[in-house]
């Protein structure tokens, strides 16, 4: 019995908690991608770099606040700095829309042109981020490290396995729940939210109903910039801030959006967790787990790891391909144009 409990705690510690946190970060990223897809109808390749851009401002504001002695200990200062990053990301999103995307929208350019344009924007943001803060790892987390410590957990439960919950993980999950609830309330209940859904559903009819496309697009970018910054900051607090990692997040984020059904907000959230849980379960080494649950004679010799962590991209990719082959509209029947 105790073995089983230990096994459960082990899995929670190394699979469930990390996957929940990572899944939340992906969900927030995928929501931004799916929103832009629903409203502007293209896959935004600059989203990863937008995340890096917003997070960069959070990092710099955090440093400044730390220098000025501002703190909300035990919570990380980055939380206090978040509004600055959000403001910067929203501003740059609106600016690029105005200077770049709007032209193609007015010309009704094909979606692929938008994608190529977003690659140009990606280059720009990529360069700016590296010029300002450099390509290296930056840490900006402070405050308490843990909500639950391994040792305390062990002492409290008497189990030999411990469960740790980092503050950044708890924060990620809590903030994600809050943001997702707020966003869904906005989309479901507010006039503008409904207009956005209507525009995404049937652009022509939305125009006939008097919805102003500029307003809808403005909100889409503002929300995407906000979500990107929050996702990037939470990811940075949980792991660390490195611009290139954010670019690489593009793949799991796209996978999450597509699995859920692109253009579909609920799908993006579900997709985020599906991708995260698949990645973590496939790359986890089950040796210790099996020692707890399997009979003595079955003790594995190796790590019993299906795939080494370096291949986590393969997981996103396989999920992507399976969805495209089996159900191209995604779980929630998103848009297939």
């Amino acid at each position: 019995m105790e073995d089983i409990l230990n096994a459960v705690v082990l899995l929670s510690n190394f699979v469930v908690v990390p996957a929940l946190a990572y899944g939340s970060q992906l969900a927030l990223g995928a929501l931004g991608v799916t929103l832009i897809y629903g409203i502007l109808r293209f896959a935004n390749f600059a989203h990863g770099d937008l995340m890096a851009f917003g997070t960069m401002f959070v990092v710099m504001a955090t440093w400044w606040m730390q220098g000025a002695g501002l703190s909300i200990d035990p919570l990380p200062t980055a939380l206090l700095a978040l509004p600055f990053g959000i403001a910067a990301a929203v501003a740059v999103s609106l600016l690029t829309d105005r200077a770049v995307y709007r032209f193609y929208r007015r010309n009704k350019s094909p979606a692929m042109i938008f994608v190529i344009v977003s690659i140009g924007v990606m280059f720009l943001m990529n360069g700016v981020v590296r010029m300002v803060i450099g390509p290296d790892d930056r840490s900006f987390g402070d405050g308490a490290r843990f909500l639950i410590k391994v040792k305390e957990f062990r002492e409290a439960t008497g189990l030999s396995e411990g469960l740790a919950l980092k503050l950044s993980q708890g924060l990620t999950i809590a903030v994600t729940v809050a943001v997702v609830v707020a966003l869904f309330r906005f989309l479901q209940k507010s006039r503008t939210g409904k207009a956005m859904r209507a525009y995404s559903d049937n652009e022509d009819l939305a125009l006939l109903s008097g919805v102003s496309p500029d307003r809808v697009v403005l909100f889409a970018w503002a929300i995407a910039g906000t979500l990107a910054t929050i996702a990037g900051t939470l990811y940075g607090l949980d792991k660390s801030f490195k611009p290139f990692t954010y670019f690489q997040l593009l793949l799991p984020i796209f996978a999450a959006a597509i699995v859920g059904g692109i253009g579909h907000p609920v799908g993006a959230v579900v997709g985020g967790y599906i991708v995260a849980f698949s990645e973590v379960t496939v790359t986890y080494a089950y040796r210790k787990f099996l020692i707890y649950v399997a009979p003595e004679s079955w003790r594995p010799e190796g790590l019993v790891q299906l795939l080494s962590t370096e291949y986590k991209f393969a997981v996103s990719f396989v999920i992507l391909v399976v969805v495209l082959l089996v159900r191209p509209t995604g779980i929630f029947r998103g848009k297939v144009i």
Partner: protein
Amino acid sequence: MREVPRAPLCFAVMAGLLMLVGFGQSWSLALSIFNLCLISAVMALGLNMQWGYAGLFNVGVMGFAALGGVAAVLVSAPPVAEAWRVAWSDLLAAALALLASVAAIVAARRGIPPGGLRMAVTAFLLLVGYGAVRVFFDPAVEAIEAVDPAKTGFLGGLGLPVILAWPIGGAVAAGAAWLIAKVALGLRADYLAIATLGIAEIVLAILKNEDWLTRGVKNVTGLDRPTPYEVDLRDSAGFQDFAAGFGLDAGEASTIVVKLCYTGLFLAVLVLILVLAQKALHSPWGRMMRAVRDNEVAAEAMGKDVTRRHLEIFVIGAAVIGMAGAMLTTLDGQFTPGSYQPLRFTFLVWVMVIVGGSGNNWGAVLGGFFVWFVWIEAEPVGAWAMDVATAMLGEGSSLREHLLAGAPYMRVCVMGLILLLVLRFSPRGLIPDAVHRRAGH
């Protein structure tokens, strides 16, 4: 009509720019840039076939280039006999296990009607097969990587002349492209883009982590060369006389001559591919391809097998990219998986094609030249500009130092700017494709 006067003019300007580097900086540098321009042009030609001819959105250029690069290693590196000796039996067993599982899966899929049962059996066999392969393969890997890890630790290659790796690199990339195409073609354009983005990341992960095959991030250096070595030239009496005839010292002359040898080889490849590409584009096959691109629905209605055409062009384009990748690794003389960055190897090639003029082979070549040139020269120019701009901050200023450190990334911004400006003001590129208006509005 506009194509006729414009193309030669663009190429003349390009030649002028390179001369400027020759006179202003050094001829050796100008040649280095030119060589990479040639490789870039080949890469851009490959992508242009996929995007410009067929409208296939491949964002996995990096993966195909890296496959070409690894081919250069596997063809030219000397085999590591010791590694083969310690691991051959396990490798053989692993290969047999792989074959057996593939056979079992194929048989099961033939025997069982489509449905849940078939999927379950396939999944089960996949898992068992994967386990069985790993049982033999893992010890083999361990044994191989233990063989003199500081120097080898991998199986080595075939020990053949590296130039053979160029066509072989193309073939390897083509094979991978065929597999991908079987799965991903026929998808919507942006899904194909995301799928290829993933493939490239996976290829890179394999090359970085499968040390038994590529030495991973330990890199493979000192690859065979298709050209003479500078040292040999310098030491030969005949060459010293030859160099003296031009009034150069042997050291300087030897680097230039070696670079010229590469130039000759690359130019030959570029011309060959360009001629073939032009011929293909104006053949019935090329016309059909363009018909498919410009109106998929109509082409399908006319009985053209769109997916089949797409598959062909995807594979051919990937082969050209793979060949360029092999050429690049040959020029570097080493294989360093860590140096493959999507920005440089995928998206930069995209900028080349769009800036040059998608659908036009000459445009792709010019784009390759121009964009590579800017990419290289923007770095010193950016550093210089930043230096001048921040001079008033004074020597010790930390802001100035910070800005100077960031200056190398200015070229990334410059690329983004070029791409956006071209898309906006000359969406068909520097040398537009005379027949089509894909990027137009």
